[in-house]
């Protein structure tokens, strides 16, 4: 109704079967974006508003980059958009920028598509002169993303898979534990990934007393503190991930609660996704 700005898709790259990257024209947002911030997008009039982390930004070319995993109807619909198409709404940059200026030696732990969020954080730390040791975990080799990009912004990189298909079987927490046992001189751990993984990382780093930043990506509608759907209990207080976060001190986050909240619309989501898959098969193959 009041839309004047065109958010055109300038580039689309498939990172693996489920994850793709899109570079979108969004001049006003590109000029303000910083590591740790996110966007809200809406594909078209019927679409829902979903939050996506700004994986990269280029203020000279006026673009922002998103990386998404096809998990539900909206991300599947997003994946049907091609270069030259545009998104109806893109708003941001939302949330507080990550505060990563004052660290000397950090471990960044990314899980699955969470690496798309931890990559800009690693980049920011590395740019600020911090020694970065990156641990990336994926379910299997075919799901590995951003390996080359991460390599460029970290001093060491360990990539592990749940099934060992890339030659290194294990969990990110195994590698993390080894590192901390060997030499506990880290002043920061940053972790982004599935909630149970972030919880496991935080439980571990708490024992070693190392400050740990997590980036939360809960259910959200407006992204400006208006709906309260993204509330997270942090240190016993209700905080809104959209305006107070998305980064929080991982040792204070009530993971149990947020894991349950994030499952809230699961039954409908699964129904929608299956419905949509059936629908699209009809369109594509009949």
């Amino acid at each position, binding site marked *: *109704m*009041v*839309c*004047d*700005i065109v958010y055109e898709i300038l580039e689309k790259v498939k990172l693996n079967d489920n994850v793709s990257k899109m570079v979108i024209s969004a001049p*006003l*947002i590109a000029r*303000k974006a910083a590591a740790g911030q996110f966007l809200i997008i*809406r594909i078209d009039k*019927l*679409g*829902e*508003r979903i939050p996506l982390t700004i994986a990269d930004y280029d203020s000279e070319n006026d673009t922002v980059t998103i990386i998404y995993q096809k998990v539900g*109807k*909206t991300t599947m*619909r997003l994946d049907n958009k091609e270069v030259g198409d545009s998104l*109806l*709404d*893109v*708003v*941001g*940059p*939302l949330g507080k920028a990550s505060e990563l200026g004052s660290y000397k030696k950090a471990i960044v732990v990314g899980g699955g598509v969470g690496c798309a969020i931890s990559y800009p954080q690693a980049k920011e730390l590395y740019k600020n002169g911090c020694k970065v040791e990156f641990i990336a975990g994926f379910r299997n080799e075919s799901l590995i993303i951003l390996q080359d990009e991460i390599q460029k912004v970290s001093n060491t990189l360990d990539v592990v898979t749940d099934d060992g298909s890339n030659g290194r079987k294990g969990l990110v927490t195994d590698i993390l534990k080894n590192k901390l046992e060997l030499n506990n001189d880290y002043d920061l751990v940053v972790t982004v990934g599935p909630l149970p993984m972030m919880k496991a990382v935080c439980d571990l780093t708490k024992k070693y007393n190392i400050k740990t930043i997590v980036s939360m990506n809960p259910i959200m*509608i*407006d992204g*400006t*503190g*208006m*709906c*309260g*759907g993204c*509330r*997270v*209990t942090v240190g016993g207080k*209700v905080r*809104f991930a959209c*305006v107070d976060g998305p980064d929080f001190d991982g040792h204070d986050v*009530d993971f149990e*609660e*947020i894991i*349950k*909240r994030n*499952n*809230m*619309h699961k039954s*409908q*989501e699964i129904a*929608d996704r299956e419905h949509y898959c059936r629908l699209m098969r009809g369109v594509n193959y009949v």
Partner: protein
Amino acid sequence: MFNKSKKKVVMPVQNPDVRKDNFEEVALGYTLEMAKEEAFRCLNCKHTPCKSGCPVGVNIPEFINAVKNSDIELAYKIISETNALPAICGRVCPQEKQCEKKCVRAKNGEPVGIGNLERFVADWYMENMNESINVSEKSNGIKVAVVGSGPSGLTCANDLSNLGYDVTIYEALHCAGGVLSYGIPEFRLPKDIVNNEINKLKSNGVKIVANVIIGKTIYLDELFEMGYKAIYIASGAGTPKFMGIPGEGLPGVYSANEFLTRINLMHAYLEDYDTPIEKLKKVIVVGGGNVAMDAARCARRLGADVNVMYRRSEIEMPARKDEINHAKEEGINFLFLSNPIEIIGNSNTGNVEKVKYIKMKLSEPDASGRCKPVPTNEEPCLIDSDCVIIAIGNSPNAVVTNSDKSINCDSRGCIVVNDSTLATSKENVYAGGDIVTGAATVILAMGAGKKAALQIHNDICKNKSDAL
């Protein structure tokens, strides 16, 4: 022709049994005959007490006179001289606390149905006349920015545009209207009506830019660099309050804002739209204001059994009488003098299963003038529920004020302004509506927008003449 009836001409409404299952408008509006009949109840008082009760000063007796003469076009022109959004005000203003409260006829019977008449005139005009009334003077080329497209921002933009200014409204959401779009449901305020009023503004030259968050996408200082000479902040009180009781983080607990936004802004109740809303069976709405009524009536329309839980008694409810009655007619139950103390979820999924609440009693009046509710010694009660909607009020949205520390705020986060000029602590920045007062009504926000427009105009004129 004077109509001596002590009662207003009754406005037809959708049958409660039918409307509880649809989102179409509840109140159906007057016909021309009904409007004229009601208009003839007006005494046309010389001292116009009704007008003094209107926050935007609509010339009420004059427009009612035009209705008496069947000149609805003239009636519309009279209203729109002072009110940019008559179709909206006719529906959602609390007239019983404003113009109609001061009506002389209310001393012995019901007041004149001013709101009903305003609505009739606006709807008639929308239906019968296509062109908008262009009252703009020639453009003076001076740029003014408005932050937020709710009722306050729209009114300010309209009035400044009428004075010849080049006005741009920046809106954070994808859609204009603020609370009119995301908050108030379709059955109380159809979105076609809202869009129509907004389109009138746009055809009058007001620009609206969506998806831009002032304080995030663009900072206030940058607006000045972009050539705006003044800024009006009307970003509203959009941040929901929670009670701070155990279980508020469980799945199935919503703020009224989230629940209403899913339904009104995102159309979650319509098949075609992607935004999810769960199938609800037993909903508890906590609160007693208009927002609580809106949430309860939406939940009812989604097929749920609804209980409104309010800690005081019915007479203290801040919601409009009409809304409470409409809710009751639609089969919504009320648990008065009841206050939740815990929300209990399933031990595995966490999904809400029960609400634990205590009975309250009223003691002496508190600062709000209403009797203060205090807990009784009775044992807490349990009620089954799969969804709890918290509608206990909203705080100011802090996005703009967090981004610019030269704007002074009070301890509640409301922007501090000079009462008579609406000027903030930052030069050439004004503020009004809920961001200044805390959550209030559409019409008070509009009144502030009006006042700010005039002040901005006066200040810009003064600066120009000083510079000469």
